[in-house]
């Protein structure tokens, strides 16, 4: 029972070749259909729109509930016949997953277009009206256009129609160089610069947090200092030698007791018996909150704060 035609020959409606006329027709029809649905939803009355959205959400959610709950076939391969109705459903669920997740990607792509339109509207508006700091907006618009052009040019020269022939006869060095320069040479480095700034922000935030303002801040400071010291090799060795000397030699009760105060053991205790349980408790709460929110959205009973 393979409803999504994964086993059909490659030149059917579902699996048209890359660059074929059929694929282009499909893309155009799907685009027009998608636009029709979006504009249709925008213009129908509000009271009619809500049930449609709630039903679509419920059906979409129900599919993934089935994915999670329905017993799935062990060692599933698409070359086998299901043995019973339970396996038939599980085969259908497993084979349809890539297609269903593609819906999500298509929708995300459509909405990304809206995001980019908003970004361009804000920044082109700023440039045209010469708002304060408009050169930054101009930089953003130029960067976006140049990156897009080189990205597509590079892709077209490598993977577009006729790309293999073009690469052998006439290697496309410039688009690749341009894309590499912009992405690897500029973007990645700028990303790293932003990331490295976190170190300074951690320092300033830690300075404020660790000031002895209250009992809680004092406990925080003490614990943090112990954990930090345990990560310094020299301090760790020195501390442990003092503790061992106080405990005396051998495996007596005093030595065993003093062993608890070795710096590594203190750090492990703090991390395993104080930090981890606290984080897990918070995560339990978060997971249940997420479950409740998802359930309300799925069943269409989420009211929102403003009703």
């Amino acid at each position, binding site marked *: 029972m393979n409803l999504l035609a994964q086993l059909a020959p490659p030149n059917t409606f579902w699996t048209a070749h890359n660059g074929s006329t059929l694929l282009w027709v499909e893309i155009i029809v799907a685009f027009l259909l998608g636009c029709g649905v979006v504009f249709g939803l925008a213009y129908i009355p509000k009271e009619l729109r809500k049930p449609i959205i709630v039903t679509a959400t419920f059906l979409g959610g129900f599919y993934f509930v089935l994915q999670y709950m329905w017993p799935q076939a062990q060692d599933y391969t698409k070359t086998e016949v*299901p043995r019973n109705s339970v396996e038939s459903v599980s085969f259908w669920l*497993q*084979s349809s997953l890539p297609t269903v997740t593609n819906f999500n990607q298509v929708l995300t792509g459509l909405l990304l277009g809206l995001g980019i339109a908003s970004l361009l509207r804000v920044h082109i508006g700023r440039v045209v009206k010469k708002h304060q700091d408009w050169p930054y907006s101009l930089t953003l618009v130029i960067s976006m256009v140049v990156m897009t052009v080189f990205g597509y040019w590079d892709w077209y020269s490598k993977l577009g129609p006729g790309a293999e022939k073009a690469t052998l006869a006439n290697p496309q060095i410039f688009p690749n160089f341009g894309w590499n320069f912009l992405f690897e040479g500029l973007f990645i480095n700028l990303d790293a610069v932003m*990331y490295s700034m976190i170190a300074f922000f951690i320092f300033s935030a830690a300075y404020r947090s660790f000031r002895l303002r209250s009992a809680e801040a004092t406990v925080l400071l003490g614990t943090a200092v112990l954990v930090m010291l345990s990560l310094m090799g020299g301090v760790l060795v020195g501390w442990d030698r003092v503790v061992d000397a106080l405990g005396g030699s051998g495996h007596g009760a005093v030595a065993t007791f003093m062993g608890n105060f070795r710096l590594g053991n203190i750090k492990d205790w703090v991390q395993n018996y104080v930090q981890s349980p606290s984080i897990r408790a918070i995560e339990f709460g978060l997971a249940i909150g997420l479950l409740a929110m998802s359930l309300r959205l799925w069943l269409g009973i989420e009211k929102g704060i403003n009703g």
Partner: protein
Amino acid sequence: MQYYDTGYLQFVFVVVLVFFLIFNIVRARKGKSLFIRRIAGLNAIDEAVGRSTEMGRPVLMVPGLSNLGPVGIQAVNIFSYITRKAAKFGTPIKMCLADAALFSVAQEIIRDVYQSEGVPDQFDPTSVRFISDRQFAFAAGVVGIILREKVAACFLMGDWYAESLILAESANEIGAIQVAASTITTQTPFLIAACDYVLIGDEFYAASAYLSREPVLVGSLVGQDWSKLLIAAIIIVLTVQTSIEKAFIPQTYQESQEGAGKVWTTKQIPPHLKKKAELFERRLFYPHDPEALNPKRQKLKLDPWDKDDSGG
């Protein structure tokens, strides 16, 4: 799919949690009065918006890297409440998003808020902005807005990762009052260090019930508390049971006697030497390996071009 790892336990557990939620929603809808404790971070929302109004500077709202899912929707829910407050006083707002899908939804929700407050002309379409879906490009863009616009209040709520501290410290630098919430527990300490108020853990999800007192939301919140109590009870019971098992109940095993052919004798392992896999608690959560298929499946007749044998 989940039976492979956890048997029917997880399925039953999820069903019980869902029952708690739905039962309490129904209970609250019937008019049962349910109590919610005070949450300081949410009480501070009015204070922060009021401060922005007095200073004539914008309120900034950022849902982090949240996408169009429960976390993002919850963040926008809280932001819609803040926007309503801001719209009442004519305080400008800014909302920055890293997800294009959430951006589209947020823009519509904020537009609706201004319309329902009777001031649709106050809504500036550029106040809700998509910045970038790249983490640090997004962080750089938002920091630029914080510093240039000199926001007076900053609400950071949603999925936060490494960029959280960059934003929180930048807002702190210009003296903005900050209320934050992160569903990513590793970022919560950073936000506590840098912000004035932080919603910890599920307080983020409790916000809508706390602010609106809507029966569905309040009932759901009480259902969440019941679920947490159940989890706590299971932890305590299994801790006690495992301790008893490791202290008092020995493990037996069969051993063949040397030189005596196939004669087996039962021997005992001291309780404290039990392996994890032999404990009741372990067997409860990891019941068994899947059995071999019986009968085996038939093969499909495929077209000769189809060589791909992989699943999906």
